[in-house]
């Protein structure tokens, strides 16, 4: 393989790896814009992963798989929203609990499936997998370079890019987006002008959770090619949380951020051992090291704009004195 082919292959793999991260990041951006910090991204992705897998396996329908993954992420988010928005409990602990819970549920169902079906049969049917795996768009996909990089991806990859663009327009160009941002920045101000703070929070936490759930489905159906494995999400939800900071709450910058992190996570496979011989474990560490650096750097260059919504982490109670 020539160097150039190698490079294209690397970029392609980076895109593949970046998709679930981007789903998680976009979901969390929407949630944080409503003034809630949800540390349960990992949990919601697990819920989406197992439910999407289950639906694909049992119902043999890719559409159902995505629908159920979305609903499962939403269900996890609904639990979180009820406890933090309505019952006003600590957001950090609730999010963390959602992660423990989601991880538990996913692994539980996964193990139960393997217990109850003969070994090797817990696999998603081929035609379902094919619907979600990278598409072949004929002539378009055959265009050199661009065909590979732009026109031969999973439908979920195109969907996530659309979500990113749509979210960016929604947040910055619409009245509802403006209202949402005010809820996240200063719920008391939003409330005083008649915006229904709880409704805005609920809707966006739920939507965000659904988006995270889709990311989970991508992991179990595309990344793992329809084979369930324990601990399948493996910390990608946490990286997504860091990516939210990296992209400074901008859906478009999140696309870039996810690409960079995706590239980091597959870099090892594309650097020939003769060039740099670094053990695999050290490579796996890289995204986390970079996240730390990003955290530090973004805290050093503090700016008024591009910060976490000011209301994040604080529950709103109108009669608070």
């Amino acid at each position, binding site marked *: 393989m020539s160097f150039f082919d190698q490079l294209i292959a690397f970029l392609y793999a980076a895109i593949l790896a970046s998709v679930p991260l981007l789903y998680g990041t976009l979901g969390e951006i929407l949630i944080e814009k409503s003034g809630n910090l949800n540390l349960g991204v990992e949990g919601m992705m697990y819920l989406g992963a197992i439910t999407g897998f289950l639906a694909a396996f049992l119902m043999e329908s890719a559409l159902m798989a995505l629908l159920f993954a979305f609903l499962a992420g939403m269900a996890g988010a609904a639990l979180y929203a009820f406890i933090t928005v309505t019952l006003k409990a600590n957001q950090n602990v609730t999010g963390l609990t959602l992660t423990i819970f989601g991880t538990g549920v996913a692994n539980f169902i996964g193990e139960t499936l393997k217990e109850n079906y003969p070994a090797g049969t817990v696999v998603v049917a081929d035609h379902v997998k094919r619907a979600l795996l990278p598409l072949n768009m004929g002539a378009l996909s055959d265009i050199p370079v661009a065909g590979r990089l732009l026109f031969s991806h999973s439908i979920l990859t195109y969907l996530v890019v659309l979500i990113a663009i749509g979210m960016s327009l929604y947040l910055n160009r619409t009245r509802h987006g403006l209202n949402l*941002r005010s809820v996240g920045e200063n719920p008391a101000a939003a409330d005083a002008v008649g915006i229904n703070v709880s409704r805005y929070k609920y809707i966006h936490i739920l939507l965000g959770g659904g988006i995270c759930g889709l990311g989970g489905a991508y992991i179990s159906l595309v990344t793992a090619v329809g084979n369930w494995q324990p601990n399948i999400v493996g910390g990608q939800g946490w990286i997504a949380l860091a990516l939210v900071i990296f992209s400074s709450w901008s859906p478009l910058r999140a696309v870039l951020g996810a690409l960079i992190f995706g590239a980091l996570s597959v870099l090892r496979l594309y650097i020939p051992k003769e060039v740099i011989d670094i053990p695999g474990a050290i490579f796996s560490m890289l995204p986390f090291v970079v996240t730390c650096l990003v955290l530090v750097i973004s805290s050093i260059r503090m700016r008024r704009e591009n910060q976490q919504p000011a209301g994040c982490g604080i529950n709103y109670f109108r009669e608070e004195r």
Partner: protein
Amino acid sequence: MTEPTTAISLRGLTKAFGPVVANDRIDLDVHRGEILALLGENGSGKTTLMNMLSGIYQPDAGSILIHGKPVSIRSPKDAIDLGIGMIHQHFKLVDLFSARENILLGQGAKGGLSPDQVCARLGLKVDLDKKVYNMSVSEKQTVEILKVLTRGADVLILDEPTAVLTPQEIEALFDILRVMKQEGRAIVIITHKLEEVMDISDRVAVLHKGKNVGAIDTAQADRFVLTEMMVGRRVDLDIQRVPARVGDTILDVHQLCVTGSDGHQELQNVSFTLRAGEILGIAGVAGSGQKALCEAIAGLQEVSGGSILLDGKRIDGLSPREIIQRGVSLAFIPEDRLGMGLVGSMNIPDNLLLKSYRDQDGAFLSRKEAREQAREMVQRLDIATPNLTIPVRKLSGGNVQKVLLGREINLSPRVLITAYPVRGLDIGASMRIYDMLNEQKQKGVGVLFIGEDLDVLLSLCDRIAVLSSGRVRAIVDSRFATKQLLGMKMTGLTTDKEDAYA
């Protein structure tokens, strides 16, 4: 039972927060085309009452009638739909948004009145595309007024709107209110300042300890009647200026400059001296650099230029800890007492330990002495507390202030800095605090008094320095100064040359 001109009637409105009854069966009518002053001391329940009208609080009992019809106001949205608009004392604006975005916020696609039109009608000048975080308080207030008016409110409630304005800005605001009154709106203005009541209102309703003690026409009221209604007894409102026996300079601030974290110049070449046995007032619109000044002296804010000498020793650039270690005794009563100065969740003895725990030997901490001290202080300063174990944030504002002031005075300071020491306190408690400051002055302590009420500054302080946009515009002898003069200096309209006589 309702006259055609009655915009709002409150009947038996009651609201309690835990064991504290903030509003007790209040009846009140507001008419169209009038300005009603809602007068009462801090903590008398004025804001709570109006918050029930604007949908922030839900009443525990009672009814609200609008144009004679009972209504249920479940949220600010209901209030807006009923034509009620409230301008809160703490502005409810999104700092990151522009004025226009704040005004558009929450309005449907059809929107309300155009802010530009409203501005033109009332002669308001505001840059609608300016971000709120770049605005002065009076600009922010204008945005709040626009928010309410573009939503077509015909009942307007203003909570202490003048607290942060200069006398000139207050006049401008009152002019706007008079125009709106002419237009037939009902206006309620919450205040505890008698002069304003006399100046602007048609009628005045007085709250005392959560009860409505009566409403009268302003024309028939005078200061003494109103005070008595407000406080519940006859009080001497005059603050004494104890004759000063001024000693040597103990605090010398010279050419002090402070740069804020965002690069903004908080203080520019501020110079003044404070002598033993005098009270030096600092007047100025909120946000003119008072906070930076206090914190720079107390060692909490980095200084970018100039010097601060306390008792002849340089303390600029020193941390609070280092100042303590130098043996220079400086006490500081910050404006937000529970935000800085005290720990709200700790009890009185633990709060007293803040300044003294370091003097104990060894690694362990003994609370015995602090408990003794607390017991003594509670008695001496008449602090109302059920016991010594409840967190100080559960005490009333006046008692919280006594704990803080008591602790600082116990350290026998040479210099006492107080920032808005009576904010949120009722008249009785305020007078007690003024007395305590006067006692300190007589003991030969130099007191720096950051105030907001010009009347208080003029009667309590020996000299007053006026701060505007981080500069000292004038230092005047309060015996010869007037409010108008201070107000003019506060707006910072003077040229630098005129400052020279300071």
